[in-house]
């Protein structure tokens, strides 16, 4: 099959994926439109998400066929997902095309990027590092995968903040070669690259190859090389090489026609590799504590959130819950709260109350916010400070807490003094939000299990 057929499609399709993703992120807003669920399903193509579910739920999720499809197609033909379906890939494809059209030449490799060849041996140690962090409870690893990262960064732009990570990805692409992020950083990409080594069909140089090196110049990942006739495992099947080839053209062929195995990057089990892997492991163990729950930290999480340790392990910091929250009671925790908690959703009742619409549960891609009926959810429990409540201390008819409470969890006695009916209280924070006492007299106290038995 000739790849040059995809001349226009190879930019158009990924660009569409990017635009669609941005559109879907924008639509993650109250009231949730039906198409907002598409983002959830789209995100499930990511094999890293499957890994996270297998690790934390110990069972194959119902939607498991989707990441499995990605894995199967990768084992068949390589990183087609990265080349054609990934939205961050779409962004980088656009960047590549723009760069080409501006420079009027199709050289994707920047001389500045030559140093990147020294990075290849560190790819899989880096993946090991990330996977160890993920398996032992840091949700940050998932953040690096495209769907989560892009959602968070697009929401950031919508809030008129600077999307630092996206800028970094683009800058790295400009300085080195377009898909630097996909080849060296993205954990999903690295997993697919690893799987891609097994692929059945490969992109192969023609028999009459003249070793002109044009394929290498235009390849966005550095997979094509005149030195080897078969593209490396980073091949995205974009077909740029095919278009540039002056010979009878590059094509996808059955791998086993040729006894040579596809070019991998580095082999396992050499001494150097073992040392790098060992160092990665050590580094992961050293880094882990700073990414785990700080002692005593138990912020008010969205209704349905898992117990804090598992919440931090599964939350990808994608910010969809924050985006979809109708009352904007969810905000990303500030950088000052430490690397483990940074960007995770928190409720500050004094700012806004949770409206219990459960939209956060509907948009959460990782299961960190589980689908839990409101009567089972327990964000926290309201407690009244009798010494400061004006109903108790001053005998006033206030009862704003009762007026605001959507769960009938505040009981007023014959003297109009409020008390909390803990069986009804969900901890939505309506009372704390409405309390007229400065430094509210009714406060939501976090509960360790965040759910009722």
């Amino acid at each position, binding site marked *: 099959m000739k790849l040059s057929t995809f001349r226009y499609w190879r930019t158009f399709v990924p660009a569409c994926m990017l635009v669609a993703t941005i559109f879907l992120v924008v639509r993650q807003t109250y009231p949730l439109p039906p198409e907002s669920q598409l983002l959830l399903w789209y995100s499930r193509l990511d094999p890293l998400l499957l890994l996270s579910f297998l690790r934390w739920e110990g069972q194959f999720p119902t939607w498991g066929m989707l990441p499995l499809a990605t894995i199967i197609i990768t084992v068949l033909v390589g990183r087609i997902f990265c080349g054609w379906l990934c939205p961050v890939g779409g962004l980088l494809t656009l960047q590549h095309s723009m760069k080409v059209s501006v420079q009027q030449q199709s050289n994707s490799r920047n001389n500045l990027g030559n140093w990147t060849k020294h990075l290849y041996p560190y790819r899989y140690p880096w993946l090991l590092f990330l996977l160890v962090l993920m398996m032992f409870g840091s949700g940050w690893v998932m953040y690096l995968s495209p769907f989560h990262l892009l959602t968070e960064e697009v929401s950031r732009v919508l809030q008129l903040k600077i999307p630092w990570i996206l800028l970094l990805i683009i800058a790295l692409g400009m300085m080195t070669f377009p898909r630097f992020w996909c080849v060296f950083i993205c954990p999903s990409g690295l997993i697919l690259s690893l799987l891609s080594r097994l692929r059945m069909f490969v992109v192969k140089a023609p028999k009459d190859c003249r070793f002109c090196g044009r394929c290498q110049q235009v390849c966005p990942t550095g997979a094509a090389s005149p030195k080897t006739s078969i593209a490396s495992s980073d091949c995205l099947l974009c077909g740029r090489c095919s278009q540039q080839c002056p010979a009878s053209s590059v094509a996808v062929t059955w791998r086993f026609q040729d006894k040579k195995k596809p070019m991998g990057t580095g082999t396992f089990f050499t001494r150097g590799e073992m040392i790098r892997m060992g160092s990665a492991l050590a580094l992961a163990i050293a880094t882990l504590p700073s990414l785990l729950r700080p002692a005593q930290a138990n912020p008010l999480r969205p209704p349905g959130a898992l117990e804090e340790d598992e919440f931090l392990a599964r939350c990808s910091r994608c910010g969809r819950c924050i985006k979809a929250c*109708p009352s904007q009671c969810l905000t990303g925790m500030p950088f000052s709260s430490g690397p483990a908690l940074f960007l995770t959703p928190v409720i500050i009742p004094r700012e*806004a109350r949770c*409206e219990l619409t459960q939209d956060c549960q509907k948009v959460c891609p990782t299961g960190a916010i589980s689908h839990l009926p409101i009567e089972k959810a327990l964000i926290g429990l309201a407690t009244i400070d009798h010494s400061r409540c004006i109903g108790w201390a001053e005998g*006033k008819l206030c009862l704003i807490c*009762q007026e605001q409470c959507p769960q*009938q969890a505040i009981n007023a006695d014959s003297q109009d003094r409020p008390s909390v009916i803990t069986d009804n209280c969900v901890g939505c924070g309506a009372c704390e939000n409405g309390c007229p006492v400065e430094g509210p007299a009714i406060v939501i106290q976090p509960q360790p299990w965040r759910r009722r038995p």
Partner: protein
Amino acid sequence: MDRREFLKTAALSGLSLAVLGCTKAPSDSSAIVPSTTPVAPPGAPNFDLTVVQGTDPEGLLNRGFKAIGGIDNYVRKNATVVIKPNFSVPRTPEEAATTNTAMVAALVKMCLGAGAKEVKVVDQPLNSSSPVLCLERTGIKSAVEAVGGKVITYNGVKDYFRPVTHNGKILKNFDFSNDVLDADLFINFPILKHHGGAKLTLGMKNLMGLIWDRRFFHTSDLHQCIADLAAFKKPHLTIMDAIRGITANGPTGPGPIREYGQIVLGTDQVAIDAYAASLFGMRPEEVGYIRIAGEMGLGQIQWEKLRIQKV
């Protein structure tokens, strides 16, 4: 005492009460907006309130306005009309914790049909951070906009208010709705329902949505403040939605619903509240702000003295 004599005394006592009320309001009041008692338009029969029985929202309003002299007597050509329903909690119309959405839309349509230039439907929902939920669940936004009205929620936007002064017992300086202050016609459109703190929420309580700092009411004296506010800006017309309403778990609900099957119209908001309280099964004096409003002479609260027209 025969009927004629009774009516005479009733009218006389009503008149004297009204006069008394007028003399009580000092003329040197520094209020920016004088708290004038709206005069019933000519042609309107002289009743404290009009009760219209039925359940069809549009029909109820039509019959009601016919009984009080026609909507043209209230809505002048090119007038700006402000309607204050109660959509302060995120409940669906079926849950009967907000003013009947279909009826609000019907009223907007009638006002525009009578030549109003603009009809604004305003409230300040209780859940201050997400009024959008109230608009969504009550369906009020789509219903009102479909007939050409405008829906405004005041939450968190101080520009909707301006400072006013009032010679209330407690309420002196506060921020009040610009829309209402500038309106040619102000219609209060409450629902009769249970309220945990104030026992009942009715017409006067509904006016609390028009002020910026509601916490002050709770931290000082809720009932006195409500009565003070009722004296500050009296609605030109009050329409009580008593088709159905929750009888417990108010104001937020959901709660048990009782069908009253009627609406109440009138210019005496205190009389309407007193009547509605009786409908709910309470004596008007049991509700603090109604009792205080009666003591302040803001309107008729004695059930026996109410002149009720039934349609």
